[in-house]
């Protein structure tokens, strides 16, 4: 893998730091008029998701990380692993829950999602920003209620629980924003 010097650091670049793959978020050039130049870099550890700040002497370099995002189809959960497939090549990958993390509760069989591969092994899963999921359980709806008001909890087919307006019924399909975990709208079949 190529290495990148501090002046090549830009948002999105994937590099190795302390043996973990990381993505650069922000790179600020800090240089006193009469002094040493530094780069103050904000980095996300792709394994843990933690964001840290680290300073480098300008001109230092880091090894690039072999990290790519691939669109895949989520196939199924065999109880121990989740299985994904690249639609074009039918190549399959499996991951455990630790890698899937929060994304798991938004994954429905056959849906597509983004799998981040590091050295060809899944590192993280990101669901689409919006998913359509059916409600499997919620309190009975109240007619005439509008989307204002307090709402009620509803369990979705993937197991996720979101707050929905009172008028939404069991069996209906709703659109959810996976970034906030919030209800967006009902989906007409």
């Amino acid at each position: 893998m190529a290495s990148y010097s501090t002046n090549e650091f830009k948002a999105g670049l994937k590099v190795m730091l302390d043996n973990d793959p990381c993505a650069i978020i922000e790179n600020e050039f800090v240089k006193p008029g009469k002094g040493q130049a530094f780069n103050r870099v904000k980095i996300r550890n792709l394994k843990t998701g933690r964001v840290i700040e680290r300073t480098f002497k300008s001109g230092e370099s880091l090894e690039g990380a072999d990290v790519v995002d691939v669109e895949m189809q989520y196939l199924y959960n065999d109880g121990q692993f989740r299985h994904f497939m690249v639609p074009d090549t039918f190549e399959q990958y499996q991951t455990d829950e630790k890698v899937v993390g929060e994304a798991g509760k938004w994954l429905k069989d056959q849906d597509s999602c983004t799998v981040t591969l590091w050295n060809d092994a899944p590192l993280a899963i990101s669901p689409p920003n919006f998913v359509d999921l059916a409600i499997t359980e919620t309190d009975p709806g109240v007619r005439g209620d509008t989307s204002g008001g307090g709402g009620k909890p509803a369990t979705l087919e993937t197991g996720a629980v979101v707050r929905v307006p009172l008028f939404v019924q069991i069996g209906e399909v709703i659109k959810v924003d996976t970034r906030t975990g919030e209800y967006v709208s009902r989906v007409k079949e």
Partner: protein
Amino acid sequence: MLAGIRQFFAERSVLEVETPLLGHSIGTDPQLEFFITEYCLSPGMVCMPQAGREPARQSPLRQTLFLQTSPEFAMKRLLAAGSGSIYQIGKAFRNGESGRFHNPEFTMLEWYRVGFTLPQLMDEIAELIAGLFSGQSLQKTQRVSYQDIFCSFTGLDPLVFSYQDYCAFAGDSGLSEAVDICGHDHAVWLDFIFSHKVQPHLGDNALCMVYGYPACQSSLARINEQCALTTDRVELFINGIELGNGYYELADAEEQSRRFDKELAIRQQHQLPVFVKDKRLISALESGLPECSGVAIGLDRLLMLLSGSVSIDDVLSFPIHRA
């Protein structure tokens, strides 16, 4: 802004000058990288650089010239020649510097006041800034010594280097990488800690002038008469942005020559390009630089502050990647 600056100096009878951007020599500061260009004495000799070709040899017909990192040397030669107080608004070039607050080509205001001590010059700087910011509510100007401000934010003494204390501070502040970066180099430690832990807090909606820099960061300033550990150097900050740098100017040719040699040695040590020191400046100093103080202010950054911009690109017609 430019009109305001010119009027300010016209009222004080300071002469506007212009000095060459292309020079035969350049400062030796190990922290500044410069642009090099080639001057051909006859037009037919100009040729485009080609990959793999040996760079043309230095010959009487081909000369290496440098784009100046600041007009300081040329202006000091004018001062030594008896110009009296002078100012200049012009471009300066620093290679490899690009970021939210840096563009390799930028505009600098530099002025020298003959007969002024550093505190007198600081008064004038405060007046100029206050005038330019009139209409915007800038708070009262602050003046603090480097030692006081450094100590108040870090608890460390910047004048006395204690490797253990500096390392411990870095560890406690989540900056443990500093230990590797700075090693046993006092000056780099000061740069690191100052730019991370002190500078961001300086000049909250006010001009903050920090004076009395440690002697290891003196460059072209005089050593303070009372305290040999500090120099008569001042740095200007507003909202944590470094705006400028001023000195009670070193007039001792021998001392200057020694500092050049020292910096050249450092350049050699760090395998940076080494160039001859500016003999014309040394001889100008030998012939006698009048007692004077001078300061340089980055006008692009000043304009950023005046217009509330977050990036230097916002105040440049075309930043370097689009130039």
